[in-house]
């Protein structure tokens, strides 16, 4: 949540504040906090909000929003795919097609990566702007084995935060058709690690008798969402919808004031004077 890149000159920060909302430049200062916020009204994204429209409370203390961006920040999109034994035949083909559909919609400035998981978690494509490389990696995935959902989701979160210069927004799309059966990392530890991550996790789950409570909780905590499906037939549409929704989120930045510098910070995000639905992460962890 907090920007932990090397601190840059204060001058940049000043320049940032002077920039127009249409071409935002986010501060890389250690203190700055970024929050990915989805604002919807009757299920449709609300556009045109300005910094003054946001009411952000950090541990209950009102904060001054410095900057708001809508659709302008380049993305780091990591696809994290369950390629266990059960994802074969049509399901695998649908998954590949869905991955390709997302990759085809990325802008030139965006980056994508691919993580697959069965027993083994494999980073099949590191973050790259060459979507074709990621598509090629998708083609050589062969399903077998069990489901290391927790390990795979964790890896994708770390990867989403890793690449590119400047500020980027991390989106992780996790696809699974079952519950975890083999991870070493525990859900608790990954959920704990997610408190320091800026990446937003969306889970696309084929509905089954198994509970996927971990993915529900991870997406909830990172401010993402869960898409439950009965069949993978329309998987590409679902994936594209996730990407579109993510693009229509606001990236809100503020410099925390009146709160402790370390520890867990509970966040409450609202839009002043409007009855809209706001989705954002529950909080962030700062300090070591």
């Amino acid at each position, binding site marked *: 949540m907090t920007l*932990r890149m090397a601190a840059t000159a204060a001058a940049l920060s000043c320049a940032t504040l002077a920039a127009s909302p249409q071409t935002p430049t986010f501060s890389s200062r250690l203190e700055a906090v970024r929050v990915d916020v989805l604002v919807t009204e009757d299920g449709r994204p609300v556009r045109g909000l300005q910094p003054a429209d946001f009411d952000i409370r950090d541990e209950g203390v009102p904060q001054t929003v410095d900057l708001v961006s809508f659709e302008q920040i380049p993305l780091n999109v990591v696809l994290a795919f369950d390629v*266990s*034994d*059960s994802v074969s035949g049509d399901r695998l083909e649908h998954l590949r097609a869905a991955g390709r559909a997302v990759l085809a919609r990325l802008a030139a400035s965006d980056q994508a990566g691919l993580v697959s998981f*069965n*027993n*083994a*978690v*494999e*980073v099949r494509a590191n973050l790259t702007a060459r979507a074709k490389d990621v598509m090629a990696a998708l083609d050589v995935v062969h399903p*077998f*084995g*069990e*489901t290391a959902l927790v*390990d795979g989701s*964790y*890896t994708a979160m*770390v*990867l989403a*935060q*890793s690449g590119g210069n400047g500020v980027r927004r991390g989106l992780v799309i996790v696809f699974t058709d*079952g*519950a*975890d*059966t*083999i991870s*070493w*990392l525990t859900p608790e*530890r*990954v959920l*704990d*690690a997610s408190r*320091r*991550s800026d990446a937003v996790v969306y889970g696309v789950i084929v509905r*089954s*008798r*198994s*509970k996927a409570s971990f993915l529900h909780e991870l997406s909830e905590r990172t401010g993402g969402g869960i898409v439950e499906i009965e069949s993978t037939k329309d998987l590409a549409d679902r994936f594209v919808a996730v990407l579109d929704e993510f693009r229509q989120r606001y990236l809100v930045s503020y410099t925390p004031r009146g709160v402790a510098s370390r520890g867990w910070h509970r966040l409450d995000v609202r839009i002043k004077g409007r009855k809209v639905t706001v989705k954002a992460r529950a909080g962030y*962890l700062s*300090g*070591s």
Partner: protein
Amino acid sequence: MNTQASRIVVRLLVLIVAAVVWLATGRQVSLAQSTTAPSQPAAKRLSRSERLRDWLEAVERHEPGIVDQSIGVFDSWRPDDFQYLAIDLNTLVLLIEDPGLRTFFFKSGSRSRQIVYNGSDLKTMLALAMTARNRIGEDTTIPPEQRLQKNRNRVLERAAIFHTDVALDALLGGRSNVRAPLGLQSFTLLLPDGRPQGMTVDVGHWELARSILDKVSPAPARHEFVRGWYIATAAYLEGLGQLVPAHFDRGLHWFPDDAELLFFAGCLHESLAETRIQEAMQSAAIPSDVKFDVSSRRAELRAAESLFRKAVNARPDLVEARIRLGRVLSLRGEHAEAETLLRPAVEDARDPPLAYLAHLFLASEVEARGDSGLARDLYAKAAALYPNAQSPRLALSALEARAGNEAGALRAMAGVLALPGDQRIDPWWTYHQGQGRNAPLQLKAVYQSFLEEERR
């Protein structure tokens, strides 16, 4: 023809990623059969004593540990034939002991009923019993009573081996048994990748083998073959991801203080406590008259702890039991005792997979109580033991991530996660089957010792 020992190695590699629960209940229920009975040849049906004769010949012909032709004896059997086998085998054992016997009772559960044979069947069975009774009749160095016992036990042990090999052949070779008879049904709940994928019903060859060994004299509990058989088959079943509570219940009934059996039974309950099993038991469509013997996670962990404790008390040198007891204690929230157990286990574990797991589990404990430095050190040692294993790398990465070191988090796992999955070896992946890693050798040793005894 391949030996079972060489075949299981291949199968183990396959099954590490496909857990299957086999819970033999042997209950008398009606359920759609998974396979159809082979069509009967036009030739006349054999009488029950003739089937017993064929069975006994197959048992005698069978080469332990080998998938030979004798295993095919059941191919033409009808479901009821297995029911008769259980009854007639009992009669055969009684006749070996006392050829003058003419009234026979068969006990099933709490019920006992008289079995009446026609003259022809009785004559054939008596002849079979006399052959078995006199097999080593010429050896006058052995007292008659002892000779009789030896003859009787030899047949029973051989029969148990035979049914073990039939059961293993079905498991390893994926052969489906013929339609199962009521009362000898073995229900298997299939859970590949944690997903309930239906049940199969097969002949309970394991049950048959157990019930055959119940008949050895003077008592199974005083019989080294029976002990060895239970230990080796427990290892085999667990190594193949087959969870069979009834097998362990029977084994511990005869050998309640055996450290190895206690250990394997502890492993069974540790597996039954796993989330995937617990969730599957909640969600699987199981007929109401079939009951799988799985308790709540808490109860299973408690059972595992108790069994591992007994195993460790009986054999403090059983490092694997100490490591698993440490893990179970951790899962039960007894972290201080878990760490106390795991600390020396890290030093004592010589087997690389065990040393690796001990390091991982101890690291997790010390990490949970906030000692990141020691946890990092222990994870690194585990990673050094298995450089291509992902678990310690992910753990190291998560340590960095929680400390706010994003670059470090990526660095810690990048090397291993870039490797193709088939180039990784991670003993954590086979944790719930790993205790059976020596099963083929163990079973081979049991068979070998039987053959040596038989040749004497």
